[in-house]
């Protein structure tokens, strides 16, 4: 670890914390209906509603809201699946790629609609520019917008509105896209282009290296996709090596902006939450709990990576672990990125996760195993966190001798039942899927490395997919791609593709529906005014309690699995 390394981390913390209330306040205005950009984009918004034939003022109850969100996502899935399968006959396909096999495409479609962006394929050797732009990048926007819309609806349920409804899905979706994601993406994309990220529709450029080796520079609409890939916590790269590729992440500066783009919307939503419930400290408490996890995770990974890997030490090399890391990022920026991308459900990587040290790799997994609630996905992180807050309120609320209440609303058996489903279904699925994969010959096919590393690959794969992260111990594969033109001879590993695809859909849509139901149950409920006898939920004590609840309820579940994967490697110099 170096002083320089820590300074950049602390500066990053400070910038993120400073921007959180600003964007949070802006989004609060957006969803209240008086966005600053409203005068310019208002006509566009209203025109869009006319095309869709929806009345944005028509409020929906939770069931109506959930139905709209699910139908829209199903439509998105079908459209994406069709585009990916038919890309051979669609335009903007300079390399002439055919469609990927059905099982891989099932996985990919589920992945992008579920805001996961798990990629069994290598982008630059599988996807046409049309698939990247009109298929994948569109879902990068829309899956993120659905997440934001849902969390806004849920917050309305938590807030002191007298209405029993949660808002209008189409209106929230439109506003999230038009006023939040699109303008930010546009600005970030242009900045990225200026810093060297490729943005071109021309065919690849052939070159001859100084030593006479012929090669091809693959270009594409990279910067535009990169911006939304980060901003929407999607993470699906244009290139196979994702944000390690210089065309996706050219310098230390683009790397810092990338990390900020990943965290800013989930972080700012905590401030939006605070404003919407009428107490900004509530938002800061949640931000604080998230931040505590985040900061500790960064410190551990940075320390572990700086210490170096057993393999390199046995090979006689001193210094930090640079395997699978880029020189321009070094250990500090790579460690920070690995944590940023896994606390948020982004999954973009600027270094090979599989080559992290044992402990360095355990932390990203643990981050995801919290249910992606430390900032988490755009929207989904906050609504996941709110479920843990309910659990914390319930357990602690009893300890002050009152029926537990959050934001003045009593938490009853129905909310607890829903919360248990919402927080425990995904961990259950992860454990069962990992067990099925590790115990069956179908699952073993996907493993690349032996020993505990193979177990880690499997555990990481299903943790990442079910929690909608998308990063990978990338040795694990579901798609065999020989390096032949047009993807000739490639085939999918059906077991991994289907199980993973299912994990992503369950991990996305089950909590989404459950949390809307919680919002619906709380909506319009009477708010008891806070007094000295009510447990305050905007204090550091409660923040600590929330952290404890996540540790004890979510992470405890995975301790045995983590021990047998990354931790056992972190505790030994043995080679496998």
């Amino acid at each position, binding site marked *: 670890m170096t002083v320089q390394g820590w300074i950049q981390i602390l500066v990053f913390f400070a910038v993120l914390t400073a921007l959180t209330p600003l964007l949070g306040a802006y989004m609060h205005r957006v969803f209240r209906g008086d966005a600053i950009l409203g005068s310019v984009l208002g006509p566009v918004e209203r025109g869009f509603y006319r095309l869709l034939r929806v009345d944005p003022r028509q409020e929906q109850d939770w069931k109506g809201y959930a139905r709209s969100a699910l139908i829209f996502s199903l439509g998105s899935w079908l459209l994406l699946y069709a585009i990916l399968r038919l890309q051979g006959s669609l335009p903007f396909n300079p390399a002439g790629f055919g469609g990927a096999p059905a099982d891989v495409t099932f996985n990919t479609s589920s992945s992008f609609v579920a805001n996961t962006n798990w990629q069994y394929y290598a982008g630059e050797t599988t996807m046409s520019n049309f698939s990247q732009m009109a298929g994948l990048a569109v879902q990068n926007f829309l899956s993120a917008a659905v997440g934001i819309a849902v969390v806004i609806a849920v917050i309305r349920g938590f807030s002191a509105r007298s209405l029993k409804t949660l808002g209008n899905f189409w209106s929230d979706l439109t506003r999230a896209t038009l006023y939040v994601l699109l303008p930010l993406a546009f600005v970030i994309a242009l900045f990225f282009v200026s810093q060297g990220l490729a943005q071109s529709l021309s065919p690849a450029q052939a070159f001859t290296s100084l030593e006479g080796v012929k090669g091809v520079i693959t270009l594409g609409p990279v910067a535009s996709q990169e911006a939304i890939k980060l901003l929407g916590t999607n993470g699906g790269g244009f290139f196979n090596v994702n944000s390690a590729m210089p065309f996706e992440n050219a310098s230390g500066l683009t790397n810092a902006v990338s990390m900020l783009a990943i965290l800013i919307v989930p972080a700012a939503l905590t401030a939006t939450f605070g404003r919407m419930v009428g107490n900004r400290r509530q938002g800061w408490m949640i931000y604080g709990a998230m931040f505590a996890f985040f900061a500790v995770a960064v410190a551990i990974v940075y320390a572990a990576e700086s210490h170096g890997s057993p393999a390199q030490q046995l090979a006689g090399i001193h210094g930090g672990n640079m395997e699978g890391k880029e020189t321009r990022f070094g250990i500090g920026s790579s460690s920070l990125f690995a944590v940023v991308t896994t606390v948020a459900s982004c999954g973009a990587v600027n270094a090979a996760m599989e080559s992290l040290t044992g402990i360095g790799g355990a932390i990203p997994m643990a981050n995801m195993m919290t249910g992606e609630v430390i900032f988490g996905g755009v929207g989904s992180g906050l609504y996941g966190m709110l479920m843990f807050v309910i659990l914390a309120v319930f357990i*602690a609320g*009893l*300890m002050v*001798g009152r*029926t537990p209440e959050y934001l003045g609303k009593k938490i009853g*058996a129905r909310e607890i039942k829903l919360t248990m489903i919402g927080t425990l279904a995904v961990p259950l699925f992860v454990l069962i899927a990992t067990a099925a994969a590790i115990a069956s010959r179908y699952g073993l096919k996907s493993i690349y490395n032996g020993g505990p590393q193979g177990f880690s690959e499997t555990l990481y794969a299903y943790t990442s997919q079910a929690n909608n992260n998308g990063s990978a111990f990338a040795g694990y594969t579901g798609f065999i791609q020989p390096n032949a033109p047009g993807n000739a001879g490639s085939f999918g590993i059906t077991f991994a593709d289907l199980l993973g695809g299912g994990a992503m859909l369950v991990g996305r849509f089950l909590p989404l529906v459950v949390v809307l139901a919680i919002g619906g149950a709380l909506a319009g409920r009477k708010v008891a*005014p806070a*007094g000295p006898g009510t447990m305050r939920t905007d204090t550091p004590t409660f923040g600590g309690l929330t952290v404890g609840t996540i540790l004890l309820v979510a992470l405890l*579940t995975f301790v045995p699995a983590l021990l047998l994967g990354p931790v*056992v490697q972190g505790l030994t110099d043995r080679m496998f």
Partner: protein
Amino acid sequence: MTALSGPASSAQQPAQGGMPRGHDGSGRPTRSLLEPAILRTALLDSLRKLDPRAMIRNPVMFVVEIGALLTTVVWLVQALGGSISGAGSDPAWYTLTVSVWLWLTVIFGNFAEAIAEGRGRAQAATLRAMRSETTARLRDGGTKNAGELMPGDVVVVLAGEAIPGDGTVVKGIASVDESAITGESAPVIREAGGDRSAVTGGTRVLSDEIHVEITQKPGESFLDRMIALVEGASRRKTPNEIALGILLAGLSLIFLVVVVTLRPFADYAGTATSLATLISLLVALIPTTIGALLSAIGIAGMDRLVRRNVLALSGRAVEASGDVDVLLLDKTGTITLGNRQASEFVPMPGVSERELAEAAQLASLADETPEGRSIVVLAKEKLGIRARELGEHEAEFVPFTAQTRMSGVDLDGVRLRKGAGDAIERWIAAEGGTTPPQLRAELDRIARDGGTPLAVARDNQALGVVHLQDVVKEGMRERFDHLRAMGIRTVMVTGDNPLTAAKIAQEAGVDDFLAEATPEAKLALIREHQEGGRMVAMTGDGTNDAPALAQADVGVAMNTGTQAAREAGNMVDLDSNPTKLIEIVEVGKQLLITRGALTTFSIANDVAKYFAILPAIFASTYALAGSTTGPLDQLNVMNLGTPRSAIISAIVFNALVIPLLVPLALRGVKFRPVGATQLLRRNLLVYGLGGLIAPFAGIKLVDLVVHNLLGA
């Protein structure tokens, strides 16, 4: 209530400052936590409760029982020399030890419940003993078995007889010994009409004869319900208990999956795992501590209320009392001593103090209310005026009525009246006199000072004002400060005018007051608070309190009150002590705190158990060739003897902690009247942090015995 009507229930209220009476005076024996007789029955019961049909109602402990059963089967096969795949390389003694301790875990849990029930049952037995099978004499002639009385039956009860069932006195007046249910030895008066008409089955008439209309259905008498409640038979789960149950079941499910999936994970790592070990891990992880104690906590909470002579008609009401935000307290008898005392005679210009005092005394001679008597006493003490015998005079007493709001005497053609200021003003006006402006001024001054002014008139002349003073009970201010710290607002309800009320409210230290209260105003106030999302508790006794009692979230009816009031509330205070509400709130809070604290403790324990069991299971996983310990053995931070002793220590600790916490579950976590934030911080420290640390020490201790002494 009007100024002179006197306190409605000043009948026999001795409570000073509302301090809780020790149970010793309750007529029922105080029981220590672990009385041998109860223990013996409880032990038997805890075996009887092993019936899986009963166990399944508690999913956490049901899982433990299934686990115990499975390990027992494995041991049996091993003991009989057979081979079974679940045994792995375990020796039979290990499987046996594990299975014994798993059974003990279940039995300890059952024992906790049984002992709580047993304590209740012992109380119930005392109650039942006095429910003698009496034969009721019907008014219309004939007799009926007490157990067969239907609502509407009217029975005649003579002195010396027990009242056969709950009902309302419809005719007569009698003194009744209610010590059987209240523990109060002094007899009480029960009479037809008014607010003292309710009688309880099982109590005994001491004098006179009354006619009682039965209001209970067979088997639903007060006594029956009380017995059922303390026995825990009619205990229904409360909303918080249901929610907690869901949480615990969810955690059990996830840990079940953790353990089931651990098998293939361990197989991949080349580590054999036996059934006994995996089940031990499962039992250690699921929240058995709280799972085992949950129902005992609930029963004990109810029991604590009964011991304070409060009968809650549902557990829901007890829980709700912990949530109360606003307490409505009657001024009279609760905040102030029931009787106001005359303290001053204020004559009008041209009238001597003596003249006024004499007139006031005469007007009060027939007034047997404490106020009236205090006027007589004051006149004697201050001015030496002896109460005159009026025998030789032609005296006609005018009693108080709600319409006139005055009382007095017509003595030899002179009409003396005393009463509320405006009533006297009207009287003088009607008599053709005028009131001096000083009268109104004095009335207002006294009211402002928190006193109750009584105007005195002779024919059409205003003589002056008698100052009646309310006396606030000692220690009330501290109590209200406590309540405020707990986050509960107190509202004083009084029939006084706003000026008087404000003064007393200030003196007593309540947060707010409702003056000139009518039943409607009371009801409206409760509704208003509830609209604002607050929970309201109140006490009441009269029939006109019934709507408000029903509307309040926690309505405590006085046992001395009417049957209507008792039916409307969700609790009955057998002591008829209005300050009992404060204790009820504390019991409710204590109940929730105990549940929350033990849940936190139980979940926090898992960390240490992981550190005991996982390094034991994976001690040799990925060991280098030639070494018996692998990398994960480093996690054996407690340095436990052997893998098997570690696992045994974990489940032994897990089992032992249940009986160790039984006293806490029965007694309840100590409640301190401080703000929520402070309370949370304290309990988190004790039960959260304590729950993290304690098992490390506990497991190590057990291991020292199991490994170092017994050699496992």
